[in-house]
């Protein structure tokens, strides 16, 4: 197999992570915030797989599988919170839920 420069893969992962971070900060719709969190975790997985591929070991892919598990758990809980937000406030604006009341 042809070799790919590891640093290019890591820079690509950093670019995807920064894009996801911009999305999390900028967007007010909670659906987009969740999507951008998925983008960030995906970028983290890409960094792990790239690093594992540089050493030719399976550890990077195992970390990716764990990130996948985390993403699945986060998505299910986050989407349940989206439902609750929409049911109570009839909006997807995260600022609508800025006050914590018991």
């Amino acid at each position, binding site marked *: 197999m042809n070799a790919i420069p590891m640093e*290019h893969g890591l820079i690509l992962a950093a670019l995807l992570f920064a894009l996801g971070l*911009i999305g999390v900060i*900028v967007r007010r719709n909670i659906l987009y915030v969740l999507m951008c969190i998925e983008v960030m975790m995906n970028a983290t*997985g890409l960094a792990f797989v*790239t690093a594992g591929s540089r050493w030719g070991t399976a550890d990077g892919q195992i970390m990716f599988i764990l990130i996948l598990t985390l993403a699945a758990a986060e998505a299910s809980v986050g989407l349940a919170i989206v439902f609750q937000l929409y049911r109570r406030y009839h909006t997807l604006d995260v600022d609508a839920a800025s006050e914590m009341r018991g």
Partner: protein
Amino acid sequence: MLIMFYIAGAVALLATVRVITGTSPVHALLNLIVSLLAVALMFFTLGAPFAGILEIIVYAGAIMVLFVFVVMMLNLGPASVEQERRWLHPRVWIGPALLSLVLLAELAYLLPRDALHAAGHTLVDGKQVGIALFGPYLLVVELASMLLLAALVAAYHLGRHDEKE
């Protein structure tokens, strides 16, 4: 193989930009699926086919279908697209974008650029991943199962209807 990696990376970046600038949730989701598939292709070129297959099946398949399902149940119309367009002023996103770009520049600066290290030279197939996963990483698998159980309980608790309200 190298040119495929760069093309997939460019596709992933473009699709992700479309995600964070999109106004229609369904279009953003479809762009996100394109981005995930491009990352899966990068995994294949990096010699990690098992991670690529999992990315397609679990990420682009299961998790994104969950998102599409929620978007369809919420039944967001053209009014939400207009609302998104109003929320996406340049003065809203230019400050956070600059801050994130500063962080990105620092990250890229920290990576050594004079000596590139080769990745993707060996193929790590699913058998090696499975042996490592159920060998030295067995405790982590158990912890992941507990995390999934906790997420199941939390999603059930948060998603149920409160009849009193």
